[in-house]
């Protein structure tokens, strides 16, 4: 009863989907947030959150193992009944939609700030939505390939970040624990926001070709995320001093501003344009999964009509209302809080319920 067999994704695509979604937008402001909260010790919080996130994502896999051929929605229907399945589908669709919209808004604001100051926001939004439609329309397999391509095209990013190191002072990283351990733990909650995205496993699991590898895939993608975050954070900390880093909204972009080549002087403009590929991973997969949930709700297979509706809704909506930078920041914080509930707390409850339920039934069968 492989009802999702047509759209399988490979192990590699699964890793990249997770990695890309988690990383997509967070890395721009992460060093500032860490520095604000914990000073030079901020990077330790990353390692703590890495362990917690891995644990939480493994719980998700444990839950999904109980019903390997269906998504979260099918699983909830089986365990809790049809009504509950529908409620979960709506909530999950809303969450993913919000996730995607937040990413889109943030990207539009970044483009407006750094690249196209005079172009109206709704035009940028439509320009971003066109390729989104083309990819999402074709379903999960194409999405997986797109993510793979984006990763290949972005391999240069870590190398570029080595260039500003000529101006770095490694002494700025010390003393590591300025004020003891307290600030490090204080930084942990706000770091969770930068690690949400693994709940996609709830939807992706049945599509995965080799399901036994799911846990390993998550571990790999989280380790990649942690290494990438750590890399960028440490470079920002060595490049800016701890007072300075808080003055920039996106220190990760500012680091690049002083790179000069003899043949081109303002290189960061090109870099930001390239970043858009990575940013796109925050809304393209989520938009797909969101419409997947809504089409599941009405019991159809073709997700394209819902996608078109969502597309038009966002495009027209942006024409009338575009959040400001402050609103966008609030949206991000809210997303972090919701994400904490959806991705860290909900799976634990679900796992408890499911295992209790299974044991109970097992006794009854005896």
């Amino acid at each position, binding site marked *: 009863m492989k009802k999702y067999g047509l759209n399988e994704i490979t192990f590699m695509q699964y890793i990249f989907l997770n990695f890309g979604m988690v990383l997509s937008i967070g890395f721009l402001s992460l060093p500032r947030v860490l520095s604000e909260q914990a000073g030079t010790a901020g990077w330790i919080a990353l390692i703590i959150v890495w362990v917690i996130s891995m644990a939480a994502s493994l719980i998700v896999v444990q839950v999904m193992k109980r019903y390997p051929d269906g998504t979260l929605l099918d699983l909830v229907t089986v365990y809790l009944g049809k009504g509950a399945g529908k409620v979960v589908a709506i909530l999950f669709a809303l969450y993913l939609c919000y996730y995607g919209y937040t990413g889109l808004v943030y990207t539009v604001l970044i483009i407006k*700030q*750094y*690249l*196209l*100051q*005079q*172009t*109206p926001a709704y*035009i*940028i939004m*439509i*320009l971003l939505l*066109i390729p989104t439609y083309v990819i999402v329309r074709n379903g999960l397999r194409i999405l997986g390939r797109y993510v793979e391509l984006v990763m290949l095209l972005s391999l240069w990013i870590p190398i570029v970040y080595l260039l500003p190191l000529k*101006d770095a*002072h490694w*002494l*700025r990283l*010390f*003393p590591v624990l*300025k004020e003891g351990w307290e600030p490090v733990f204080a930084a942990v909650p706000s770091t969770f926001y930068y690690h949400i995205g693994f709940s996609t496993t709830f939807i992706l699991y049945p599509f995965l070709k080799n399901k036994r590898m799911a846990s390993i895939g998550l571990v790999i993608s989280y380790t990649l995320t942690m290494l990438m975050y750590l890399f960028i954070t440490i470079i920002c900390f060595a490049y*800016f*001093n701890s*007072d*300075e880093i808080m*003055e920039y909204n996106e220190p990760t972009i*500012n680091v690049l*501003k*002083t790179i*000069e080549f003899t043949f081109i*002087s*303002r290189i960061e403009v090109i870099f930001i344009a390239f970043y858009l590929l990575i940013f796109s991973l925050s809304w393209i997969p989520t938009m797909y999964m969101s419409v997947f949930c809504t089409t599941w709700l009405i019991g159809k297979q073709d997700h394209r009509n819902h996608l078109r509706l969502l597309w038009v809704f966002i495009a027209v909506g942006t024409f009338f209302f575009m959040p400001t930078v402050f609103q966008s920041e609030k949206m991000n914080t809210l997303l972090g809080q919701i994400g904490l509930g959806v991705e860290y707390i909900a799976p634990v409850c679900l796992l408890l319920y499911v295992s209790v339920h299974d044991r109970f039934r097992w006794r009854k069968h005896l």
Partner: protein
Amino acid sequence: MNKRMLNVIFIFLLVSFVPGCRDRLDLENSTNNLALGVDLDNEDNLLFYLHNPVYGRGIKNENLVLKVKSQTIRQARGKQDEQAPGVITGRKVQVMLIGKRILEHEDWFQMLDVFFRDMKNPLTPRIIAVNGPISDIMYLNPKDQPILPLMLRGMIDTKSAKSETVQTTLQNLHWQMVEKGVTPCISEIQLDKAKRIMLTGAMLLDHKGKFKTSLDTEDTILLQILNKNAKQPVNLTLTIPGHEKSGPIHTDHVSILVQSMNTKVKTSYQQNKFRFDINIKMPVDLTELSFPFDVRKNGKELENSISKQVQKKFVNLIKKIQEQQIDPIGLGLNARAHEYRQYKKVEDHWGEALSKADIHISVKVNIRSMGPLK
């Protein structure tokens, strides 16, 4: 059939509404600002100078210099726009000249906020202090040199590679201003009597950007060694005492090329003050010797006297810095990294704390080669 029509209409709509060319600016319509100058006139009014190249047939003077009185940089651009043939853009600013009269006041750095806030502006312009009025330099227009902004930038880039001046970009300056454990240090130029631009070394400022003292090129080289910024070989010429001078000819000099030196700073806190032990290992190549000397035989002796002379110069430089209560070396970074608790107490007046600190310098010169002569 119907669907195809829909698609065509949709594509037509997109093509007509979506093209995002609103940020376009043709080169013909822009006046590219390459050098920006900020100065005070005699009545303490802020003056802004813009140096722009102009192209076109029949134009004799290819430099357009605009000067306006204004309160801020952005406001000045508006006023300058009235005089310029095109839209003034600051995307290509190469150098930023700051008059010494400005540097005698505090808090001028805040004026440059527009460069950090408006992403269209670059953060790479070299900051240059001008000893004298900026108008002299802006209107100089020498016939035998490239246009001013390119010439200045070339000067800074090549001389700073040899450590004869510092390469402080706007981004570096921002760090030096914000960081409490270091004080700014920028390049300095002036006009000599024959009206030629001279790069005289570096200018040291205090925490708020106020002028403290100037360093000549030799002191700048030493400072760059202490800063660990001297990445390429540097030249030093020293006098060795004990060799007599005959008439106007100096016969007591030795020139050395210092390469891959190693500067180590040890930080400690003793008797209520900081203590820094700076050890410098200098491998040198002899390049010039203006007195007869058998280097092959008495190499050790020469090594010792060079070490002593270099050390003396370093001590003088440190003394000068301590007198002015500034820290262009960035010893504050070392203090924070190693003695954080003590540093935290004096963080806000680090210059003062440094002036009380014990700084010990030891230089170890090691002659690697003497050239083809013995």
